């Protein structure tokens, strides 16, 4: 425990960041020119950090594995970004955003970090608008907001269903300005495969050029990991195909503690799997739950009839349907938080009520909403005797205006018209709250190595609220890291360029080369995907939405076995010195096979249910909350931070105790 110092400044919560910023050591502009910073990743976190650091005068080298920084996975975010602007005058404030985030995270995040996030959230919107991000506006020309994820205020800014795209293109444009000035050197189609430490400090990386296959040495005075989340551990997720843990995992193996790996978010509304060939899952925005009602048939014989095509969902009358969220959670109904909605869907499907071929789907039905909106419209238009068809048409128009693009996306994928027949949805892995442990400065336990965005663990505790990942990525990159990193670098103004012809770089490069050669030369027979799918299955079934001791122990053993099998039987065609997509995948899956074990180990150690982590042994035994998740504040109010000890099985647990001085801990209840 002694090794973990969160470095949270003293003083009242509201003043910590301002006071701290005032006292931080600065680097003068002339000296910034002598300092190099490597940034791994160009998503919202890495893109915004690269641009800002370059504006300040540092020499930035930015890396991404795609062919352009604009294609980072942040581009796919749909719904929106939170900020405590209180433009709607509905009582929002920094404190309220802070409070919602800590409560939403089920009291497993660090107060001071979350408060700072809320504090800078308003600046993000100002900055993005100044860059020309075309947020949605109302008829008065002012910024529009929507409400999101069951909070009581309307604080989510959005750009149609493409908020992530527009924010990322904003950061990309800021990067372009600095690339043009020569302040950012951009390395597209490069993958970081190791971090290099010199005298205990992060001083560079080994990267593979994904076109030539060459290994390159890059040095810097600090390294920033902004490589995103590790949801692809599950094989199927809503993440981009290339999203991976490699950069973070290699850093972990060089001394950075990995925090709360088992905290994952399983999003309740995704398009279900259709077959074994499936390569990824598509999210249907959470906003649909504002108007859709979730149900499965009440009787098993109807389930069978539907699966066999003998009945259609629209044939079932109201009393033949089980609106299970409304039944179990009368107060919140279909708007319970993501983790609760996901588990309830799983519970019904496990009991045999899943409505598609695979048995893993529930209905999300807009019939009531169409009718309700239709009647409302008929009243507004003074059509007293509107026919049922007329009411349907009026209502459909409203639903179309709100969710048209999502309905169209659904129809393209599933080939069914969701206006006519209920949508089918099922939970899917979406976001990882865990990540590299960082202190208040966003520095990992490796000196000079920082982690920002989804790659770190810091702000979302055990469960992330909708629209707050984009906020965190940009807060870290635009407003937090550029200050805190200066404090560290102020000691480096006399260091000079870090040479790369040293033993440290040599060793790191050799070890990367050995691993790549080993992957090419295993002489096995099975494609990388074979192993990735198997790993995904283990994790999904045993470390997914619900976890228990026996299952977790099995998962650990099975992953160890699979890892051994991988290193014997994987086949990677081609060589190392060329474009080799299979080799890239193999390296990533090799790291997932190690992370997977730690992930299960972390879930096993945390013998409580909290947020997205549901331990079957930790539920309310009786009373009105019977069967619901039970958090154990007495024993588990801490961050698990794992130290690598040569093998995932021997990782050592360190605990950062969490102190709540500004918020009272409460059990969540949605009944």
């Amino acid at each position, binding site marked *: 425990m002694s090794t973990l110092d969160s470095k949270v400044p003293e003083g009242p919560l509201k003043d910590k960041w301002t006071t701290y910023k005032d006292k931080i050591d600065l680097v003068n502009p002339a000296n910034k020119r002598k300092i190099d910073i490597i940034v791994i990743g160009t998503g919202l976190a890495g893109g*915004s950090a690269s641009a*800002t650091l370059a*504006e300040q005068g540092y020499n930035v080298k930015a890396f991404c594995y*795609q*062919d*352009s*920084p*604009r*294609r980072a*996975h942040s*581009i*796919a975010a749909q719904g929106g970004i939170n900020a405590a*602007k209180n*433009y709607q005058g509905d009582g929002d404030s920094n404190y309220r955003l802070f409070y919602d985030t800590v409560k939403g995270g089920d009291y497993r995040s660090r107060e001071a970090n979350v408060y700072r996030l809320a504090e800078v959230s308003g*600046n993000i919107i*100002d*900055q*993005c*608008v*100044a*860059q*020309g991000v*075309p947020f*949605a*506006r109302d*008829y008065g*020309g*002012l*910024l529009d907001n929507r409400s999101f994820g069951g909070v009581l205020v309307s604080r989510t800014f959005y*750009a149609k269903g*493409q908020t992530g*795209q527009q924010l990322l293109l904003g950061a990309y*444009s*800021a990067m*372009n*300005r600095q*690339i*043009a000035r020569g302040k950012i050197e951009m390395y*597209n189609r490069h993958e970081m495969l190791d971090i290099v430490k010199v005298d205990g400090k992060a001083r560079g990386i080994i990267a593979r050029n994904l076109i030539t296959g060459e290994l390159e040495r890059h040095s810097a005075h600090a390294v920033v990991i902004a490589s995103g989340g590790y949801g692809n551990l599950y094989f199927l997720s809503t993440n*981009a*195909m290339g999203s991976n843990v490699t950069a973070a995992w290699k850093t972990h193996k060089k001394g950075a503690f990995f925090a709360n790996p088992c905290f994952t978010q399983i999003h309740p509304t995704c398009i279900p799997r*259709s*077959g074994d*060939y499936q*390569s*990824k899952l598509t999210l249907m925005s959470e906003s649909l739950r504002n108007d859709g009602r979730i149900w499965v048939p009440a009787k098993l014989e109807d389930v069978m009839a539907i699966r066999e095509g003998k009945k259609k969902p629209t044939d079932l009358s109201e009393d033949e349907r089980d609106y299970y969220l409304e039944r179990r959670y009368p107060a919140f109904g279909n708007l319970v938080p993501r983790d609760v909605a996901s588990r309830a869907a799983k519970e019904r499907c496990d009991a045999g009520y899943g409505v598609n071929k695979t048995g893993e789907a529930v209905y999300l039905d807009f019939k009531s909403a169409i009718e309700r909106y239709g009647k409302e419209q008929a009243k507004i238009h003074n059509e007293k005797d509107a026919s049922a068809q007329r009411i349907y048409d009026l209502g459909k128009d409203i639903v179309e205006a709100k969710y048209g693009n999502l309905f169209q*996306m659904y129809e*393209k994928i599933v080939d069914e018209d969701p206006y006519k027949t209920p949508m089918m949805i099922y939970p899917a892995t979406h976001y990882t709250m865990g990540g590299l442990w960082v202190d208040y400065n966003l520095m990992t336990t490796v000196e000079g190595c920082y982690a920002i965005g989804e790659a770190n663990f810091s702000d979302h505790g055990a469960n992330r609220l909708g629209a707050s990942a984009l906020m965190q990525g940009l807060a870290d990159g*635009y407003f937090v890291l*550029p200050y805190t990193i200066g404090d560290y670098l102020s000691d480096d103004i006399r260091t000079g360029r870090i040479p790369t012809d040293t033993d440290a770089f040599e060793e790191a490069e050799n070890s990367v080369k050995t691993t790549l050669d080993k992957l090419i030369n295993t002489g096995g*027979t*099975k*494609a990388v*995907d074979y192993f990735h799918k198997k790993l995904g299955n283990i994790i999904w079934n045993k470390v997914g939405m619900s976890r228990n001791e026996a299952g977790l122990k099995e998962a650990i053993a099975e992953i160890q076995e699979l890892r051994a099998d991988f290193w014997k039987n994987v*086949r990677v*065609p081609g060589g190392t010195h*060329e*474009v080799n*997509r*299979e080799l890239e995948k193999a390296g990533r899956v090799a790291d997932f096979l190690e992370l997977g074990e730690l992930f299960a180990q972390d879930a096993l150690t945390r013998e409580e249910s909290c947020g997205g982590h549901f331990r079957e042994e930790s539920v309310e035994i009786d009373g009105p909350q019977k069967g619901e998740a039970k958090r154990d504040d007495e024993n588990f109010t801490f961050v698990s931070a794992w130290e690598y000890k040569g093998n995932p099985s021997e990782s050592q647990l360190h605990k950062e105790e969490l102190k709540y001085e500004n918020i009272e801990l409460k059990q969540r209840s949605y009944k």
Partner: protein
Amino acid sequence: MNLTLKIWRQEDAKSPGKMVTYPISNIEGHMSFLEMMDILNDELIEKGEEPVAFDHDCREGICGMCSMYINGEAHGPDRRVTTCQLHMRMFKDGETIHIEPFRANSFPVLKDLMVDRGAFDRIQQAGGYISVNTSGNTQDANSLPIPKADADLAMDAATCIGCGACVATCKNSSAMLFVSAKVSQYALLPQGRVEAKDRVLNMVNQMDIEGFGNCTNTGACEVECPKGISLDNIARMNRELIKAKA
């Protein structure tokens, strides 16, 4: 479904390429086009052959990374979708499918179906930004109201995903639709007006340096653009150019 695939195979940027035929069977209509390619690749790997290299990442039509030319159309036969959103139900049992990379002099082939679209980035670097630093004391976002109609049009232009289908489709390999989408986004907004002149001149200049062809108003780009970027943007950019040169 059983299909015959004819796919462009090219070792690297320097080698010549050729079409190679691969039969594939048991394809379902619910599969996406790229899932069909995954199956082909797994089969090739098991046979000890080299899989087909192609670019892709998000697989939901937003990153702009996927880029195949399928049966003579950029992103294939469906409309308003990228290759990753194309489904096999668009094809018939027994059909032969031709799969090639996006072709343009400014998009050199790197391997098989992968091309280098770095020219697009360089055009953006020439002026696709508003010169504002991150400071934390920018003016309040609502101090500058923008008419909803303008904001919506700017958003429509900003949805370009930089895929390059417009270039691959155009018989002149012109990048006008792509460049005009960015120029339009800023032309419609009050922010960054002071640098409007330099922006359009520099971006168009870079477009010419990269060797993209001229626009002769055939409109093919608009038809094939997965994001429905409209030709109006080209007209708007031309007006910006005239203003800038005046």
